[in-house]
């Protein structure tokens, strides 16, 4: 007879302008692996943050093993035996594994001095017991992402958690590391733990979860036994309609080479190897994907092409012209378009209006700016209104609206509209659908294919293997700053790619350091 571990009853949480959780009920049984499924913005993370004490619910109650509890902060949650393995690791980059694990519950010797050696021994013992291989003396910034995640898990086990919440754990792992994670979860279950897995990856739910609760736009859709449903059924519950996994895409008709990267070598921001002797070509009318785990040179490659970082050696030719010594503005004029990975940091000036954002790259040319340098705001606003209509960008107050008031999906559409309107020969696209809902994702992917069919050369950098396999005509795999394989569409499957990525570098970090 199984008993109930956690009951969330009628949980409601409101933020300005949105109801994140709307009277959600959730029941998790003792020692089960329970998945919480929903797309971006469905409210899964908020719900679990309430369970972990980071937020107070506006309405509703929480029951732990039948007894009602109030979890007012993470300390209270920890005391109740609830632990959270965060999506963005909460680790101090220049502390050791042990220091990170004991932070907040440090042991002291009889003089009140910090006692790290006792802690080290305990960490080593836990690591043995649960098969989570770590070296207690390593510094976080020196170890791989997979190992960092194990440190996060050990943090909860050190505090004797018996209910573990995993928040999108596979977002930063290679396929092999994801398999290892699934093994870790199974082992934790064998040791008697209760696991809640927040994810939007259907494959993982099928691999390791017993029951699954689906949320959509803050509301509970239902709870199912994983064995009784298919991935398609889960997807439909998640989105509310039948979802097409594949994009309709005609065959590519590649023309001449528009982007020619030749033997480029450059260092990364920490002074160590960024990319090494990298060569790649992209032709007009094709989409070339760059697959790989974050931290293996993707950022450096993009910076090299767009001009954000200088290269140490090699050439980059756009339309047969070497751009490797040009300024960023010159490259934009030479036909390089860029849809950046981080739309808030690189894509938009959030405090500017939509109209001003639309001319960020050509405000100084006619008709937006006269010969003497005076701006023509009428022309600027006209341009923006045209693009808003053309791309169906939802902007409640029109072109004068501040960019920060748009939703993520519309912000991304605006950026894409701007870049495409400049008619670039080469379009560098990085993580274009990160953090967006399914509707926006479909639109953006269709748009990328449409641009390919217009004859543009598109370089797509993405950590989502599905996206790469779906959209790209050719796939290059990046590992430790080098291209370790280039394949045509259909020549390679996920496991082979994963294998090639497996030689990946250790220095990838996912530590959210006070950003």
């Amino acid at each position, binding site marked *: 007879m199984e008993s109930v571990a956690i009951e969330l009853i009628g949980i409601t949480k409101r933020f300005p302008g949105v109801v994140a959780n709307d009277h959600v009920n959730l029941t998790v049984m003792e020692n089960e692996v329970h998945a919480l499924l929903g797309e971006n913005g469905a409210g899964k993370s908020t719900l679990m943050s309430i369970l972990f004490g980071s937020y107070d619910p506006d309405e509703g109650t929480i029951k732990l093993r039948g007894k009602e509890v109030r979890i007012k902060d993470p300390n209270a949650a920890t005391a109740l035996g609830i632990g959270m393995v965060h999506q963005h690791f909460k680790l101090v980059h220049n502390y050791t594994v042990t220091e990170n694990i004991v932070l907040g519950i440090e042991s002291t010797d009889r003089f009140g001095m910090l006692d790290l050696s006792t802690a080290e021994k305990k960490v080593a013992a836990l690591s043995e017991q649960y098969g989570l291989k770590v070296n207690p003396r390593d510094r976080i910034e020196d170890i791989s992402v997979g190992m960092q995640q194990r440190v996060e898990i050990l943090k909860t086990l050190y505090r004797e958690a018996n209910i573990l919440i995993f928040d999108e754990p596979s977002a930063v792992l290679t396929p092999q590391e994801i398999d290892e994670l699934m093994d870790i979860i199974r082992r934790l279950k064998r040791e008697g733990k209760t696991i809640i897995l927040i994810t939007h990856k259907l494959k993982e739910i099928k691999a390791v979860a017993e029951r699954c609760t689906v949320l959509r736009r803050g509301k509970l859709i239902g709870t199912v036994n994983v064995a009784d449903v298919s991935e398609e059924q889960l997807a439909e519950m998640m989105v509310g309609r039948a979802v097409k996994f594949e994009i309709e895409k005609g065959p590519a008709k590649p023309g001449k080479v528009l982007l020619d990267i030749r033997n480029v070598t450059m260092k990364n921001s920490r002074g160590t190897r960024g990319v090494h002797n990298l060569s790649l070509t992209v032709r007009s009318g094709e989409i070339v994907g760059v697959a790989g785990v974050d931290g293996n040179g993707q950022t450096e490659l993009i910076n090299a092409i767009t001009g954000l970082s200088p290269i140490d050696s090699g050439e980059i030719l756009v339309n047969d012209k070497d751009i490797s010594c040009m300024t960023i503005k010159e490259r934009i004029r030479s036909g390089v378009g860029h849809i950046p990975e981080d739309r808030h*940091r690189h894509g938009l000036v959030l405090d500017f209006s939509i109209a001003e954002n639309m001319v960020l790259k050509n405000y100084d040319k006619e008709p937006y700016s006269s010969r003497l340098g*005076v701006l023509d705001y009428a022309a600027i606003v006209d341009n923006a209104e045209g693009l808003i209509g053309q791309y169906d960008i939802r902007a409640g107050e029109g072109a004068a609206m501040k960019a920060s008031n748009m939703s993520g999906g519309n912000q991304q559409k605006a950026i894409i509209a701007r870049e495409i309107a400049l008619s670039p020969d080469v379009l560098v696209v990085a993580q274009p659908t990160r953090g967006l809902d399914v509707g926006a994702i479909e639109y953006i992917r269709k748009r990328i294919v449409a641009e390919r069919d217009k004859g543009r050369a598109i370089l797509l950098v993405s950590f989502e293997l599905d996206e790469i396999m779906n959209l790209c005509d050719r796939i290059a795999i990046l590992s430790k700053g080098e291209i370790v394989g280039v394949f045509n569409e259909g020549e390679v499957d996920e496991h082979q790619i994963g294998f090639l990525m497996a030689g990946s570098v250790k220095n990838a970090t996912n530590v959210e350091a006070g950003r």
Partner: protein
Amino acid sequence: MRHNGQRRNLRTLLMTSDGALSVMVVLLGFLCGTILILLVGRNPSGMYKAILQVLTGYNIDRGRFYVRYVGEWLAQSMPFILCGLSMAFAARVGLFNIGGEGQYVVGLTVAQFVALLGPQIPVMHWVLALSLAMLAGAAWGGIVGALKAKFEVSEVVATIMLNYIALYASRIFVMKIPGTNTYKTPDFPVTALLRSEFLERLTKGSMLNLGIIFVVLSVIVYWFVIEKTRLGFALRATGLNKEAARCSGIPVVRSIIFSMAIAGAFAGLAGGIVSLGSFKFGRVLAGNDGYGFAGIAVALVGNNTAPGTALAGLLFGMLSSAQPLMESNRIPKEITFIIQGLVVVFIAIRAGFRIFIRYSMKKSAIKETVIDE
């Protein structure tokens, strides 16, 4: 019911309008100043009488108008406005320019040199002096911009260091001018002075001089450049999101240096105007005149906009020109510095005011729903 509605409107105003908040902050500063005066046993009406006389010329005790005080008010506002524009311009690019003092000193020193050693051609003399003062200030500011853009040196510490270096260097160089003792140089030739007979007659002998034309021009130029030109667009973008600006091809390094140079030019102009408009001889500076630091407060109160800075500059000019009147009413002149400092602190917690207002708005909203029931 209507009372609550009015209160809600005031709160909404404070939440959305930076101007309204600035006004409230200034009033709060005066309130604290008044309390402080009371605490030390003086009569605060002395402060307010002085302020009235400076703004309108009307002396309450004697019941007469003295236009001279209005002229003095405008004259003393000039360096405040210019130093405020200096700080504000840099702030629009995201830089905290506390080097106004040093840029002012550099401008002042160069103006003195040109006045004493330059060609004594009417009008051309002071035009040359002011132009070179602006250039000197621009150079002193540009250094900071270059250090920030190329070496990531904090502009906060760099400008303070340059302030001290400017002050001591000014002393060294000015004392080398023949005929200079430890505190003043020989008198300026008449062609170098910014005096205007017309203005002096109009204001019955105040220090108001031709510099006022440049101040008005500066305010207009500031507004135009920031709001209407592509340079202003680039600067604003850099100040709001340096990374996105860079990604869009905007030359960020150049924008930062340029902006600091323009900021320095404003302050340098202030130094030139003070030295040639308010004095008949050059000075060997014993300490800072203080306009540069006051400019910080002026820009903060004016929210880095052209009209706001002008108004704030007039406010500080008013406080400053009222000082002698205050002293004769037994109010220590330092009260103006204290009000300045308080205003800066209060502006800093602008965000805090908004949080407080939001909190009290929520409370009254709950109260209202209960009443409506």
